Every structure is written in C-alpha cells, then in structure tokens.
C-alpha cells in the first residue's frame, strides 16, 4: 500500500510606494494539494460469503472483503486554494490617513469525502480612517 501527498504552492506579492504617504500592496497564493492511497488489493474471499465486487456497482451489500478496495477513492483528497489580497493606504495629511483592503479566498474541494464538500468562497472589503495625534 502506497500513501502519497503532493502539494504545489505558488506565491506572488508586490509593494509599491509611488509617493510619500501613498502605498499599494498586493499578494496572491495558489495551492494544489492532493493525497491518495494506491495499490490497495483485497481479493474476494469466499469465507465472507458474498458476491464478488463488480467494477460498475459501488456496493453490493455484502460482507465481501473486496469492498475494502473502495478505500482508494474514499481516501483521496484533492484541494485547490486561492488566496488574494489587495490593499492601499494614503496619508491625507500628518494626522489623517485612509486604508482599503480587499481579501478573497476560494477553496475548491474536488474529491469530497468524510466532511462533505468543503468548497467555499469568502471575501471582505475593509476600509477605515486613521487619526494620529
């Protein structure tokens, strides 16, 4: 039995200050994560008194140990995740500044299993004024 996990993560970010008091920032990361069991092989055993597992039928409703071969697909995890953030900050004067930040996350669960389909998206736009004394 083989258990393999592969994760690729790509990341990019940038900061730009074109003028004193003005700054922009942006960042993104993209992850591809995959885990699986391979080479699971339970031969059908007559002692378990059931019909042989058919490749087209998921469950025959028997005690056949060959049903455990389904472990390969049940234990497969496959996610892609996007994380993006963009922001800007501007000092209007020495006492007041304004900041805007946007955040976006996207999780794509391509092989839902025990916890169901965990795909989802979240985003938030935050803006606030800052007063300095």
């Amino acid at each position: 039995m083989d258990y393999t996990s592969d994760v690729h993560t790509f990341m990019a970010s940038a900061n730009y200050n074109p003028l004193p008091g003005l700054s922009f920032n942006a960042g993104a990361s993209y992850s591809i994560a995959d885990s699986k069991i391979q080479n699971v092989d339970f031969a059908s055993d007559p002692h378990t008194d059931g019909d042989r597992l058919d490749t087209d039928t998921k469950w025959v409703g028997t005690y056949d140990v060959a049903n455990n071969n389904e472990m390969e697909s049940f234990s497969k995890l496959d996610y892609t995740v996007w994380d993006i953030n963009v922001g800007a900050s501007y000092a209007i004067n020495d006492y007041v500044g304004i900041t805007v930040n946007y955040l976006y996350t996207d999780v794509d669960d391509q092989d839902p299993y025990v916890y169901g389909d965990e795909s989802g998206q979240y985003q938030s736009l935050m803006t606030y004024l800052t007063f300095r004394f």
Partner: protein
Amino acid sequence: MKKYIAIFVIFALAVFLPFGNAAWADEDSEQSIHVELSGGVSINGNNDSPNKAAEYRSLSDEDTVGIYGGSVDVRSGKIEFGAEGRHIDTVDQDYSGHLDVDRIFELHGGYQEFLHRLGQDELLHIQATSAAPGMAAQLWHSYEYAPDFDVNSNEAPNKDFGVNYEKYDATTVLRLPMVPGVKVGVHYRYENREGYQQAMGMSKCGSCHVVAHDKDIDETTQDYKPFVEVNLGQLSMEYSFLYRTFDNHSDHLNHLYDPAVHPFTGTWDPITNDKYGGVNYDYRDGPLELSRNPEATKTVHHVKGKYDISKNQSVSFGYIHSFAENQSADEYGIEGHELDTTYDAGMLSWTANLTRDLLVSLNGRYQFIDSDSADIDLKGDSNDWTRDSDEERNIANVRADVRYRLLRNLTLRGGYEYESDDRKNQEFIVDRDIKTHKFKTKAKWRPSSGLSVTAGYKFTFRDDPYALEDAAYPTHIELCVDDEGNEPVPHVGTYPYGEYVYGTRTHNMSTDPEFEHEAKMKANWSPMDMLFVSVYTRYVHGVNNEDLEYKYKDDLLDSGIDVTVTPINKLSMTLGYNYLRNNMDSEFYIPYYHG
C-alpha cells in the same frame, strides 16, 4: 490570579513610590505621546461552506460590521507605556500593552480571541455492510442532534460546529535597585475554549453502528507562575513554580449503546434478554458518558542556571519536577489509583571555545516518567484487569557537538547523539528499550559577498525500532471442528478473541524507520542590490524491515525558491514556489469482524 497580580503590583508600587520623584519627568526630560485611532467598516460575503475558506474568520457570518483599532505610546522620563488593539467583531479581537517604569517595574500582557470553525463528519461513507439507499435497508449511522433526519437520503443534516478561543496573559517583573542582579516576577495565563464539536458514540461492531453527537465545549486552563532570576556575575540562576489547572464546565454527554448481541447465538430477545455478549456495556446499563476531558492539575518546579567557568567555558544545568493529577478520577469511581503522573528530568551541559576557531559542547539529559495504572471494570468479575500506563519510561540522552571555522568563510559542524528510551510497560511491542543513534554534519560557506550556502546531512539508526509484536498475518484455524477434523454442531463452544483472533497473529508491524537519511541545503544569492534569490531543499528517506514481513519506506521532499526584485526604490516584488511530496509505502492490515 488577577487578585494576585493586583497585590503584586500594589506591593511593587509601595516599594517604588519612595523613588517616584526620580522616575517622573522633570522639566528637562524628553516626553512624547503618540495616539492612533482607527474606525471603519468591513463588508463581507461568502458562498457555500465557510469551514475551510473562512476557517479562522468570524466575519464570514456577518454582511457588514464596524471595525475599530488604535494604539497609544507614551514616553515620559523613565516611564514607557504602550498599548494597541484591534476589534473586528465580538469573537475576533486582540489587544496588547506594556508598561516600564525605569526598568524597575515592568508589566506586559495581551488578550486574543478568535473563532475556529470545525467540520461535520457526515458519516455517509459508512456503508460497509448495509444495502444501498432505496433498497429498504437501514444505514447504521444516525445523528443525535437530528433525530428525525432521514439517514437513507444520502445527505447529512446542516450543522455548524466551531470553538471560540480566548486567551489573556500578563507578566509582571520587579527589579529592585537595592538588590541588583535579582529579578522577581509572576506570569499568569488564562485560556478558554467554548463552543460545540462533533463526538462519536460507537456501539459493538463500531465501524457501522455510529451515532454523531454535538458535544458542548467549555474548558478553561489557567497558569500561575511566579519566578525569580538571580545574576551573580559568573553564576546566573532562575527558579520558577508553575501551578496549572484545567477545569471542564462542559455539559456532560451521554450515549445509549446498542444491544451487545452475541454473534453466534442469534438475535436479541427483548423479553428474556437472552443471547447477549458477555463483557460489553449496552442500553441495559442506561445512558453512559462519553468523550469528556478529565479535569486536572499540574505543578512544575523548574530550576536552571549557567556558570561561566572562564571567558571561554561555561556550564549550564537544569532540573524539572512535575506532578500532574487527574481530578476527575473520584467522580468516575476510579478507586485505588488517582491516575497521577510524575516527571523528573535533569540536564547538564558544558560548552567551551577551545581555540578561536573551535567550539565544543557536551550535553546530557535524564528523564523519569512514573504514571499510575488504571483498573478496567468489565461485566463479570473474571474480565476485570489493570491497564498499566504506556507513559512510564526512563529516557537517557547524551550529545556531543563540534563547530570548527576551517576558513574565514567556511564553518563546519558535526555532532553525535545517543538516546535510550526504556519503556516500563507496553508489553505488546517487540523491544521496550529503543536505542537511537544520530550523526550530524553541517557546513556553512560564503564563497562571495553575495552568496551563502548551508548544507547538512543527518543519519539516524534505531536499534529495535518501535514495532507491534505479532500484529498481523494470522494463521488459519478451522473452528467448529473436532480433533479429527469433523464438523459437529456448528458454533459449539466459545472462541475468545484473545486466543482465536489476536492470538493467531504471527508477524510484526511498524511505521518507525530503522535507518533514516536527511539531507538539507539552502542557498541565498544576491548578485546585485535589486535582486535576492533563496533556494532550499530537504529530503528525508526512512526504511525499516527489521523483523517485518514487508519493507516500510517513507520519503519526504520539501523544496522551493523565492525571488525578490526591487527594480526601483518604490517597488518590490516577490515570487515564490514550494513543492512538498510525501510518499509512504507500507502494509495495511484490517481486522475484519462479522457479528
């Protein structure tokens, strides 16, 4: 403990006040006050499941929310005070602050709160021995929090699980001018988890007969830790005493277990209560509690110190005595043993610069763990037994390290480490005394001003790695036959699992490497001011086939590259890539029970 800190602060101020005039700013002292206040709004949105996309973000539950924050920094003479905070919503906020008065009195602390979303095991994959939906069969799982839910629908009820974490800590330090070199203080920490998470109740033949509960979580941990540090020139020492409590205010969770039907003697008769298994508790014993963390207390005495023998030699030492006690043992009628654990550890280390380029260090550590056994009470007096603790062991560790600067830009390191982990119980493993040898080498090289390379290799050898004895490969036994091989009446007699299932297994299993190789490399390169490149890789390869019928292998590769470019002063960009791969090759042994 808040009262204790208050008393300590009052005591400190009472001692400090006679010197107050000296601390406050006079007309010529520098003063500065900076205040920052922020206020705004967050507009939020989400689709589908928030459990991963917003796992630690409570804002996902609200469309629009006001956000606040601020900081203050005050410096006046010998007083420094600072505080900052951020409030996103009622379950996402953090604050911190510090006060320093002439380095005589110091106080710093913080508060943090956040939400952790948890998933729901839908149990839809548990279909091992049931007919498919729509075939007039019952899927053997259910949800206590959704009792009328149609479990044949191949869907799960909507249920949100999650836990709010709350933590605050504070440390107060007092350095009295009349006692130089002495620092006394106290540290307090409070941590609370509150919410709901999923818990499973499994009856006999538990792979199918599973019931999901929503378990109330309300658990509090508190640490009280006074300490004193003394610096007497060549000798410096520190003593601390930790008192930790874990209190569980959660609602109790009970489960009504399925009838423990005997596999060979037929189905359950509700009138005669006939044909039951011998040792399992079931519905006849009423609702039974499950999934509860016991309350506990822990005390730790910790002494550590360092003695500078000379400018080039020093000795460090330390001793820990810890006592942890299960406070729920009495509540559950565990007699005779209170389930205590005692831990003692001593450490001694010697470090010396033998020459300007050569540094050596020797380190030794010994640990004792003593832990109470537990009496297991099963139905029928002949089935009770005493479960010895798996924690009990003695661990001896010695280590030697050398660092040698071969050239001005090349430093070499080498080391050897030996550890003996001698378990007192755990008779089910092949060898309870596991000895580990580690050999390490490392080089750090700067061939040019813009390039540095670090490379290392570690080899680990475990003598008798952790392995379960006779854990797999049962020999086949024909039941229901007499000595001549004839089949009399089927299912005659009893076949205890200990003898006919576990007792027939003949081969060991392990996932602990006997030999392990680890290689690491990292390079930082900056050929010009505007460019910085970092490359790293780590590879681990482990194998074990000692006393096994198969070869266990584990490979890990973790590599990546980061590039930072600053084309102009006002702009910087970073690109990065990381690849992680883990492959384990082993055998998987599934015990299969019918009935």
